[in-house]
């Protein structure tokens, strides 16, 4: 299996404060890769590096065979990378429909009607509130809208940062089912950042464990889920 995304020796910093050290990471084509770790481990920083919002200070970011480390975020979406950011980051003063259409901005909205139909298919409740301002939605509706907005970009690589944060389990199950469907039916490669380690490793094929800005473990999701160190440190389970 080839890697759609590969990071080699990536380091990153916010000003003087380094947050990532010598990261090697790969997301295989058509697979779901989970990135887990505790608060402050560097998961979101790594997602920002992959999406182009944070420039790495060292290393290479290889996407589809090309080094995109210096490609800005606004150009990466055109190459097929879409991020569902932590906190959803919807445009609160715009409607649900306007938010979704902005997801297709990089494609100049070509064929957006078909993409919109797919979003409605996955999240039918959004269609009924298409004219409602995104800032007035519930947390679950906002996350559906954020995932829908990313779907509108027709990504080859979908980055999902803290999807389950603050949501009811029943909503999280639905969103997880949507990600599985996008992965299996469309072949979308997904990188999933989650504090809910159990959920992440259940959905994913492979996993990486981050601790204080470094990759400390990686392997098949099933193996990681059964690893006593992971169970104790991140799932709150004793050996």
């Amino acid at each position, binding site marked *: 299996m080839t890697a759609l995304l590969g990071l080699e020796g990536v380091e990153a910093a916010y000003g003087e404060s380094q947050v990532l050290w010598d990261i090697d990471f790969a997301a295989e084509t058509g697979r779901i890769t989970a990135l887990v770790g505790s608060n402050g481990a560097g998961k979101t920083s790594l997602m920002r590096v992959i*999406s*182009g*919002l944070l420039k790495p200070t060292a290393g290479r970011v290889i996407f589809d065979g090309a080094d995109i480390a210096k490609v*800005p*975020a*606004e*150009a990466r*979406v*055109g190459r097929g990378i*879409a*991020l569902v*950011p932590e906190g959803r*980051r*919807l*445009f*609160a*003063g*715009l409607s649900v429909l*306007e938010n979704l*259409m*902005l*997801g297709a*901005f*990089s494609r*100049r*909205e070509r064929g957006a009607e078909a993409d919109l139909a797919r979003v409605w298919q996955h999240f039918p409740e959004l269609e009924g509130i298409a004219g409602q301002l995104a800032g007035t939605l519930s947390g679950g509706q906002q996350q559906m809208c954020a995932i829908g*907005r990313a779907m509108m*970009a027709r990504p080859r690589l979908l980055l999902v940062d803290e999807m389950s944060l603050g949501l009811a389990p029943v909503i999280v199950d639905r969103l997880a089912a949507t990600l599985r469907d996008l992965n299996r039916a469309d072949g979308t490669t997904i990188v999933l950042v989650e504090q809910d380690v159990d959920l992440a490793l259940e959905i994913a094929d492979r996993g990486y464990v981050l601790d204080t800005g470094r990759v400390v473990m990686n392997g098949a999701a099933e193996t990681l889920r059964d690893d006593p160190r992971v169970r104790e440190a991140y799932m709150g389970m004793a050996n």
Partner: protein
Amino acid sequence: MFLQTIVNGLLMGGVYGLATIGFSVVWGVMGIINLAHGAYVMIGAYVAYVLNQWLGLDPFLAMAGAMPVLFVIGYVLQVALLNPVMRTSLLLTLVVTFGIDLILIDTFVQIFSSDVRGVQTAYSGRSLALGPVLIPYVRLAAAVLSVAVATAAYLFLNRTRTGQAILATALDREAARLMGIVPERIYGLTGGLSAAVTGAAGCLASTLFPISPTLGLTFLGAVFVITVLGGIGSVPGVILAGFAYALVQAFASTYLGANYQEIVAFSMFLVVLIVRPQGLFGKRFYGEAAS
């Protein structure tokens, strides 16, 4: 006299509102309080004057020439001078825009001198009589065109792909980048469109005000007040606030004397700031750039 005062206020309100749209949108999208904004009104008025003198063009038709000229000026100033400093500090943007304003005013003093000029049309001085109320044709045309251009600006922002990109950038610059929107391009475009709409207001102002290089100073105070009254970044808000501002000015001028119109209008501004700091008409958006 009461009805005539209302009519006078309403007819002026559209021009004030139109002159404010660009200032308000630039503030809302980029967080820039553009002190050179009044100079755009002045340049629009001079373009109308020159086209009227050289080609005999009606000042209202001159908008078609003024808007592209002002778009280029606004775009170049935004990209070359304001984009590099806009994310540093508010003080720096104030200093830079103040400097641009001085340079533009002095340039026009050099070209046209400080002499006061005016644009006359065949229908200047003629009015439509509705009972006791007189509606000057020039003011009526200016008011109608103001509302028409303001409506076009509103539709552009809310109904076009580029307008949506401008609003998205105003709301969340980083999330906009994730959509494939290049903020620097949007800022240049916003600066250009703002100047173009303001240039149109300048053409209309050329029929109502004496034209001189300091014409913009007459407007700068008004657009600041109207922006705060209407809500930063809100096109309908600033149009309504433009009417409110002009009505207050008209009543103050009629019943207290012309010297009081600014005092009363700015007093209203202070009262609104204290009682309703978000503006009289709320706001469509108020993004990170404006916070």
